[in-house]
């Protein structure tokens, strides 16, 4: 009996001791992203971006704080493409894993699910791949984002289109019914009207909807360009639907997904001429002294690591890790992060203004973009000869935009 009591006591002590152990020599970093479900593509790209930061930091020995290097360890939580699951994941990371900070979910919906939970536990989060302005309108104190909101970037692509000759005059704009896609479509609409382009039809459609009948009706309207806010496979399906009904508008504009390698791989020649919005490409001229010297070196390292041509979601996710790294170094905070250190980290992130391989990271501290990165310029890309090519604005352009689109059958 006595032996049993002693055994139970030892086990209990072993379980309790780590809680009081205090110091540890690595940062516990929570990662919430959609590794399954309909948004698994973007979710996994985001994970790759976070992994790339963690692996590179650790290969350098860790984050250097007052002369000592602390490695980072990622703790994953699958949001399953559902905001509710993102919230459950945030709860688990905060209460069970007791992470120091969180790298946030792919998709705005999942971010909107996780952010209130992390507010409750006062844990800082930077999302590397959420673009809906709805997030920043909520003014979450503990949530930041490295990709500017779509209403900050989406208008750039419309400006590029408005400068084409002959300028498009009529547009049909639609968006899938989720936080990001809806905002994208609304931005396209607003920017088109500002640029003097008449919006003939504006619709929000259910996610994953077969759009062939809708496009058949659009064909009758003969708009000069079609703008679509959606996610990767929805974009592929829209192009396939247009090809199947044999309708080629003068221009086709999308946003996230065009820069993904799968878009070009799945559509082949049909991907050519499609415009997209972005904030980063592997050919962008950037300079940095944190982990990667420029966009090109990051792009090549990522290609070696994952065998794909990475896009701005991947880069933005890595930049989220870099932002935490720079802020931690600024406040000399060693793990584990206590409440005061986490509060100081928020202040440091608000004051952060660094140049990375991804470009400038500078979070807004007021207004509609509160805590979103406003240090980047919106870029317009187009698929030309099977590559993502910068076509606008003029000071960033690598090539002239191809316009109007060549009919599907003539490719």
């Amino acid at each position, binding site marked *: 009996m006595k032996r049993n009591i002693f055994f139970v006591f030892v086990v209990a002590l072993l379980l309790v001791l780590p809680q009081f152990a205090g110091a540890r020599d690595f940062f516990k970093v929570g990662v919430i992203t959609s590794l399954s479900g309909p948004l698994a593509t973007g979710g996994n790209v985001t994970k790759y971006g976070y992994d790339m930061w963690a692996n590179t930091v650790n290969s350098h020995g860790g984050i250097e704080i007052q002369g000592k290097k602390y490695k980072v360890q990622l703790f994953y939580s699958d949001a399953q493409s559902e905001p509710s699951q993102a919230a459950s994941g945030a709860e688990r990371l905060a209460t069970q894993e007791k992470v120091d900070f969180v790298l946030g979910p792919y998709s705005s919906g999942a971010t909107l699910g996780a952010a209130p939970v992390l507010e409750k536990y006062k844990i800082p989060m930077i999302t590397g791949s959420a673009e809906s302005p709805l997030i920043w309108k909520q003014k979450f104190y503990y949530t930041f984002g490295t990709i500017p909101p779509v209403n900050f970037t989406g208008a750039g692509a419309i400006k590029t289109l408005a400068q084409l000759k002959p300028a498009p005059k009529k547009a049909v704009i639609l968006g899938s019914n989720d936080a990001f896609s809806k905002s994208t479509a609304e931005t396209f609409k607003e920017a088109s009207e500002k640029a003097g382009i008449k919006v003939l039809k504006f619709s929000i459609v259910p996610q994953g909807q077969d759009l062939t*009948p809708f496009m058949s009706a659009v064909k009758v309207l003969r708009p000069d360009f079609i703008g679509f806010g959606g996610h990767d496979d929805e974009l592929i399906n829209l192009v396939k639907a247009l090809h199947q009904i044999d309708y080629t508008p003068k221009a086709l504009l999308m946003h996230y997904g065009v820069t993904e390698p799968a878009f070009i791989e799945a559509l082949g020649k049909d991907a050519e001429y499609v415009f997209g919005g972005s904030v980063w490409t592997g050919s962008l001229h950037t300079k940095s002294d944190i982990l990667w010297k420029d966009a090109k070196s990051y792009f090549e390292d990522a290609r070696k690591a994952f065998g794909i041509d990475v896009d701005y979601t991947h880069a933005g996710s890595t930049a989220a890790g870099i932002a935490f790294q720079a802020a931690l170094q600024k406040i000399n905070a060693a793990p584990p992060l206590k409440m005061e250190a986490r509060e100081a980290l928020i202040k440091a992130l608000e004051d952060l203004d660094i140049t990375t391989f991804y470009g400038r990271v500078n979070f807004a501290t007021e207004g509609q973009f509160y805590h979103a990165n406003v240090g980047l310029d919106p870029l317009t890309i187009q698929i030309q000869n099977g590559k993502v090519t910068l076509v606008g604005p003029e000071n960033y352009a690598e090539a002239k935009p191809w316009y109007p689109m060549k009919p599907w*059958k003539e490719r």
Partner: protein
Amino acid sequence: MLLLLPQALVDGILIGGVFITIAIGFSLAFGVMHIIDLAVGEWIMLGAFLGFYLTQWTNIEPLLFLPVVFAAFGIIGYFLQPVIFRVISGIKGDPVLMGLVFTFGLALIFKGTGLTIFGFYSHSIPSVFSAGSISIEIGNFYLTIPIMRFVGLAYAIIITIMLQYLLKKSNFGLAVRALAQNREASGLMGINPKKTSSYVYAIYVGISAMTGVLIGSIFSLSAQMGARYTALSFFVVVLAGMGYLAGVPWAAFLLGLIQSFFLIYFNPGYTLIAVFSILYVVLLISPKGLFGRGW
């Protein structure tokens, strides 16, 4: 706007064709074995990937691989059915519920395995039929019939006729119908229930996998595509009447037409609400489906 009416009708029928292909096998499996197979979308996904890789390796038209895909997955289905039978025929637990849980587990395994093997990116199966369409333009009147969708409709009609023929005109069909009516009694009449069920499940899995190739040619394919098609097939089969095979085409056309008309004439955002409302109203009036012949 009336000029768009023929287009809305044609699109609705073509969407209905796609729905038939998704739901017909599911209805057969339920009608005979009373299994609500929640892995139907995953069978479609796996078939789509087999079609995708076969096309990539050989550069041959994907629709020519339909018999190969049917045979490959038919064999898998044949050998899997006894496992499902064992699960649903245990002493404990409701058979329908056990089947539901088991196939849900299968769906999760297939999806997870798919994500690991095929990756998370979307793909597309290129078909010569994807490029063409029949267009009629007279003044302001437009009518477009995408060839690929038309092929889908033709495939759906052929599969439906073949299944109907098999069930109504062959000895095998007689055995299947007897099995569906009373498992024990059919066994007493000399029918081997286990073997017949295995054949039926093989046909269902084979048809679903073939449908995957077609779906991958019309839309995109990815490892996470299954859930969408499971939900769609469930809607169609519930509307048709659970297990009532002859009702599937009509239910599919009805759902296709609702979608098409909402997308063209009304607010596309309300398409799903319209589909659910009609489903709800039909089930309220006739819980056994459109024709009152379901399980």
